[in-house]
Structures are given as C-alpha cells and as structure tokens.
C-alpha cells in the first residue's frame, strides 16, 4: 500500500513529494519504507517516533526517527500504519475523536456543561463552609484585627457614648450571651462612631461585633438594641464572616481555574454570576441572623414587635427604594425581614 504525503528532512524547510510503503510487492511484512522524490536515499526503512494528536483540518505530522517529518493530509490515519505507531500514540486521538461529534453529540455536551455548572454552583458555598471550618481561629483573629485597623483608619472614629450608656448596653449584651448555647462562640462587643456608615452595626471575622453610636441614637430603644446586637451575635455564632470570605475565595479560585481558558466574554458572565451567588448567600446569612435575633429576644422576654417598629422606621427613612427586590442586594427585602418579627 502506498500512502501519499510529503517529506521534510530534519530541521530544514525543504519539501519533497514522498510515499510511505507498507506491504508492497516483495516488501517484507512489518517493514515501513519511505520513498522520496528527488532526495537521497530514494528508498529507506523508517520507524515512527511521534505522531501529532488528531486535530480538525490539520495535517498529520509523523516524525521519522533520524530522518525528518512525513506530512499527510487526511482526516484519519490509514489503518495500515497502525502497527508502526509508537506506544500511546492512539491515546492522543481520543480528544480529536470527541471533537468530531455531530450536532446531536454537541447537544449532549451542552447539557453536560449545564449540569457541571449547576453542580459547581451548588457545591461552591458548601466548599466555602467546609474550608471555613478548617481556617485556624488565630487566622480569623488576624483577619478581623487587620480589617478593624483598616476600618479605624478610614471610616470609624472612637465612640462618644458615656460610660453609663456603655455599661447599660454591655449589660444587654451580657444577657444575650447568657442565652447562647453553652458551646457557642463568644462574641466581643466594640463601640465606634461613623458618619460614613450611619446607623449600623456589623460583625467581623474574629468574632467582633461593632456597634455604632449612630445606631444607638437611631434605635433609641433597649429592645431594638437587643434585637440588633442579637442579630450580629447570630452572624458571629454561625461564623458568617469567615464563611463569606471562604466562599468568595472558593468562587474566585473556581472562576480562575475554569475560565482561565480564555480571556473572553464568558469572564464577564462569571463575574456577574459570582456576585449573584455571593449576594444570594449573603441574604441567606442575614435571614439566619434575623432568626437568631428573634429567638434570643423571645428568650430574654423582650418584645419582637419593637423590631417591627424599627424596620418601619428604617423604611420611612429610605423610602420606596428599600423594598425593591434586587438580585445584587446583600440584605433581604425589608418587608420580608419585618414579617419575621411580627
């Protein structure tokens, strides 16, 4: 059998018409011969050391030991060459064969892509939670301390509450801590003031709860302050801050891994869905913290209704905008949160 192609001597750009001969008349079985037109030797026994992996539209690049390259344009390698291929060469053809799917096969590929995306989407938050559990507590402390230091430099100023006021709030906080399960993480309360954040309170990694003067002033009610502190305590005991960090890390790494293929439009889509996933998780965390808050208020014998009034007050402050649902919001809709305490 004659296989028509062309031959390039090693490390040159010369090109000669050439043939690979298998089982020609008088040729011993199991011998591969190369016949070259216009180059010496005109006929030589050769061995194949490498074959390029199958690729749509590409010529086959067959490397012949010590001689050069035989190039063959065909969609498939001729069967007769199979005995002469080096070990493992056929393995390189697997992907090439997969890439020959027809449109029905491609529909299956698409379904598999969607399925794996869904799997990753479901698995990521869980992976983040799993990672968060293994982050040593002193790492979390370091992260919390450095965040607090940066916040102090940029947005926060020392609290202007009087000692009596602080002592009073400390008592409320202690009563909340007393109602936590015995094995729960103990939060630490810190007072600050910030015109930038306004009436607010937040939980940092390292179990820190920050209460702003503006919040105390805005709430103006012990039950509400208890509710807010219990909410932040809910974030702490459920390790929301660390879990959020771990989840965004997991997502960032996954995005980097998967979409490192191409700098393309897909990257934009992933960035978008990343923030969607993160905001969705964040809303879940807020609801969870609200539930802890409600439970503690009830255990303390305080009035959950005060939180309803508080949400009404917040709603009155920010007008219609607060109730517009938005997929990128970090907090659930105000009326949903309000309904929980009713």
């Amino acid at each position, binding site marked *: 059998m*004659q296989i028509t192609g062309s031959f*390039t001597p090693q*490390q*040159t*750009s*010369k*090109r*000669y*018409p050439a*043939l690979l*001969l298998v089982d*020609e*008349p*008088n*040729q*011993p079985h199991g*011998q591969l*011969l190369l016949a*070259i*037109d*216009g180059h010496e030797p*005109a*006929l*030589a026994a050769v061995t194949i050391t490498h074959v*390029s*992996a199958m*690729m*749509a539209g*590409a*010529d086959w690049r067959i490397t012949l030991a010590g001689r*050069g*390259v035989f190039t063959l344009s065909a969609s498939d390698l001729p069967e007769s060459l199979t005995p002469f291929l080096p070990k493992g060469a056929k393995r390189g053809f697997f*992907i090439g064969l*997969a*890439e020959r*799917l027809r449109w029905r096969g*491609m529909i299956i*590929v698409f379904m*598999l*892509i969607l399925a*794996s995306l869904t799997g*990753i989407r479901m698995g990521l938050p869980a992976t983040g939670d799993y990672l968060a559990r293994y*982050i040593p507590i002193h790492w979390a402390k*370091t*992260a919390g*301390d*450095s965040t607090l230091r940066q916040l102090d430099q940029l947005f926060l100023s020392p609290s202007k509450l009087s000692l009596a006021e602080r002592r009073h709030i400390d008592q409320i906080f202690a009563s909340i801590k007393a109602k936590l399960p015995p094995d729960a993480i103990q939060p630490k309360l810190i007072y600050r003031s910030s015109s930038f954040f306004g009436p607010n309170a937040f939980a940092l990694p390292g179990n820190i709860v920050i209460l702003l003067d503006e919040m105390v002033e805005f709430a103006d009610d012990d039950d509400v302050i208890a509710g807010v502190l219990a909410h932040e305590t809910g974030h702490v005991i459920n390790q929301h801050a660390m879990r959020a960090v771990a989840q965004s*890390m997991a997502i*960032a*790494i*996954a995005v*980097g*891994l*998967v979409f*490192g*293929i191409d*700098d393309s*439009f*897909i990257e934009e*889509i992933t960035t978008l869905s990343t923030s969607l996933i993160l905001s969705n998780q964040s809303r879940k965390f807020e609801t969870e913290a609200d539930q802890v808050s409600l439970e503690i208020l009830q255990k303390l014998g305080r009035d959950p209704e005060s939180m309803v009034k508080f949400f009404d007050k917040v709603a009155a402050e920010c007008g219609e905008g607060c109730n517009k649902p938005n997929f990128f919001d970090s907090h659930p809709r105000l009326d949903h949160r309000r309904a929980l305490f009713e």
Partner: protein
Amino acid sequence: MAKTPKSPDDVVKNPFASKASAASPDENSYLFQRIEKLAFTGTAWSYFKIYFINILLTLLTLGLYVPWARVRRRRYFYSNTRILGDGIDYLATGFDLLKGWLLVLVGFALFYALPFFDFGIAYLDTVFLIGVFIAYPWALNKSLQFNARNIVWRDVRFTWHGSYWGVAVNLFIAPLLGLLTFGLLLPLASRMMKHYIAKNYSFGSKRFEITTNLWDFYKSGFKTLMLGFGIVVVTIMPLGLVYFNPNIHGQIDMNAPFSWTIIIIMFQLLMVGLFLVTTSFYRAQTRNLMINGLRLDDNIRFRSELSGLRLAWIALQNAVLIILSFSLLLPWAHIRYYRYLTENTYIRPYNDMTQFIDNERNAGHSVGDAFSEAAGLEITL
C-alpha cells in the same frame, strides 16, 4: 555465510524511479515575483466543537484540563493556518504547560490567602502587586520564547531573542508613555512595539528584519482620530438635538430615573462601540505597516491588506452577536476575525522557502506562558 544486508532498493521497486529523477525544488525556476496568500482552513463548526469540549472537560476536571485546552485551541488555529499550503505546527503539549499553570495557580492562592497572615508589614498586598507588575515583562518575554520554540513550519522552528529590559521598555513603558501623553506618542510607541517584536523573531537561523516610516504610523493615528471624531459627531449630534430641541425636550422627563438610566446605558454602549471600532481600525492600519515592512532572509517579503473599516465592522458585529447569543457564537466570531487577518496576508516566497535550517532545540519552560495567559497578555502577529 552471513547475508549482506540488502538495501530496500534491491527488493522493492522504487515508485519514483520511473520518472527521470525529478528536479530538486531548489533548482526549479520558481517565479521570483510569485505572491501567495496565506490560507485558513478552519471552520466555525469544528472550532465550535473544540471550544465547548474544552469548556466541558475543564469543568469536569475542575480546571486541571486548562493547559490541554490551551494546546488544543492554539494547535487548531496554527495548524489550520497554511503558508504555501503547509500548516504551522504547535508542538507544546499539555504537560509542558501544566508546570507553569500550577505555579501561577499557587501564586493566585497566595494572593487570596495574604489577608489571613499578619507579617507586621503594612500594605503587603501592594508589595505583592508591585512584584507582579515587575514580573510582567519577564513573563511575557519567557512566554514569547517558549511559544516561538514550539511553533514550527515544515521542520524549522521560530526563536524569540528578546530580553527583560527590551520587553519592558518596548512593550510596557513605551505604550504607557503613549497613553500618558494622551496618545501623542502612541504612534511612536506602536512603531517601537512592532519593530521590537519583528526584529527579535527568527525563523530557523535567519532573523526577521523590518523597515517602516514613523510618519506612516502618525498618519494611521491621525486617521483613527478622525474616524473616532466622525463617529462621535454622527452619533452624539442627533442626541444633542433631541436634548436641546425645545419641542422634543418637553416630552422627555429628565427627572425620571428611567430616562437617565437609558441615556447612561446608551452612552456606555456608545463608548464601548467607539473603543472597539477605533482600536480595530488602528490595529489594522499598524499591522499593515508592520507586515509590509517585514523581510526575511533579504528576499522574502510579506504583505498585509487589511481594511481598517472592514476589521472594525467585523469586531463590532462580533461583539453584538456574542452578547446576543450569550457567547454561544464566540467560536464563530473568533474564526471570522482570524480568517480575515490570515486571508489578507500574503507572502512573496523565494526558492520555495527551502533554504532554512534550524539549529536550536531548547524551548525553555512554560511559567511565563501561564503567567501571561492569566494576565490576559497576548502578542499576535
């Protein structure tokens, strides 16, 4: 008595022997002035399959397949690009790329983990970023070197001869200066970039050479500026008329957040479109200048006949179709763009290009390549 080993000629009939020993191509009287078009044999459908199978396998292997995916993509484009009928081969394997890819991943992980450690050094992440910045030219240089050694036509490889400072000055500092001077030095920077790239490639043992005229680059820059200005006038003017026309003005409630949103979105779309059109136009113009000034081994010349407007139109259409199809048409868009580039590139060969010899073998490592890919750096001819 031992048999003397027989030459194959003694037994098997030489299929070429009947012809009166064909002339060696070197001695053939190839037309000196022959101009050959580069061909691209890829199709949207076959690349579509490669692209999405790459995505699937990357997802299923949680990213481990990325180096192989890159090899598949590059090989597809290279081997379907044909010069005098022969495809270019990309010889790097997924394993070659894996090492660099893993190192870059570790770098990423370190960056994300940085806030968890307090080394008592302020702004450690800034220090890290500066480190990355300093590593850019190194990575790009190594990447060009690695890839050049893995690109082979017939059996001759390319070589990249650039250096850290050469890359830093010509490919990073010069364009930065171009931008900082509000584009005043941009044509100069483009010329520096193109010259640096062209002069530092060799095909086998022969270096590429280039001669261009700085004034031509400024002419391209000026044309691009005029084009951008023209687009702004044509699109903004009607908008302005709507806004200032007292008859129409009354109907648009500028206080309604809705109208503002629409205007802001329109404005952003316009800016993106403008950027796309002007950069494509400029790219086509400067590529033509570079390719037309390129020489190899004194006699081999190249020609590029891109139309700036046509390329801009393709880029704009591609962007719209990619967005509308949720990136399903991305492979099609890639192919279309690439095909336009290759099929408008010509070579004037000499001696049927048989005179080249390769003498180097070492391809170096793939760390720079992975780094540059991760940073989205890419140099294309």
